[in-house]
């Protein structure tokens, strides 16, 4: 197999650490894991952001706010999967964690207006049917204008 470019290596390490620990790593943690200079990791973060594969924390390029479907900060979409705890960026990404990890998952979320607890679950590769709905407030052309709001 040909040697992978740095962007791909960084991307894989981000997801490897996140899947293993439930926490999205910092540039320092990725740097230590890969044994490469942190400045190179930060440059890869910028390139992955340009490709819309991650979102750095606003005001702190050393931290990752979103490595979709994973969130670097707590959200209203916690996900339990493989005995670990994650946070998803939105309801789409709550299912996305189950899809990315190829495992069962449960998200104890809540109604966006009332706060009523609403649980969504994936079991044996299929979602457990509920009549809940997701509301997409932002058109697809503008999802990355303000991804945190989207």
């Amino acid at each position: 197999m040909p040697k992978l470019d740095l962007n791909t290596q960084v991307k894989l390490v981000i997801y490897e650490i996140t899947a293993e620990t439930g926490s999205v790593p910092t540039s320092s943690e990725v740097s230590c894991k890969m044994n490469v200079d942190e400045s190179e990791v930060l440059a890869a973060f910028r390139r992955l952001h340009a490709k819309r594969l991650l979102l750095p924390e606003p005001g702190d390029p050393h931290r990752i706010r979103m490595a979709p479907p994973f969130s670097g900060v707590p959200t209203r979409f916690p996900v339990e999967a493989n005995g670990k705890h994650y946070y998803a960026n939105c309801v789409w990404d709550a299912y996305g964690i189950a899809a990315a990890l190829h495992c069962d998952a449960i998200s104890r979320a809540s109604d966006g207006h009332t706060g009523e607890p609403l649980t969504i679950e994936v079991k044996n590769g299929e979602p457990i049917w509920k009549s809940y709905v997701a509301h997409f407030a932002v058109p697809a052309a503008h999802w990355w204008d303000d991804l945190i709001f989207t």
Partner: protein
Amino acid sequence: MLLFRSEETVNRWCAAHNVPRRPLVNLEQLWQLAVRWYANRLSVESRRPPPDEMVSTFKSLGLTGPFWDPKSDQWR
């Protein structure tokens, strides 16, 4: 995007936040979107779907129109 028990709570949320009511997606559609977007996300070849592929995916799930077109300028 947020999760709601029903269309009724969506409408109340939109009114409370002065946000236009936009499309709703059911959980089966949402699961299919998650699989298309993320099933290979942890692999070497993972990438964000390009615009034409996004449109094709949305269309296959019944999500059509400018709202679902990442190249649409209707919303600018």
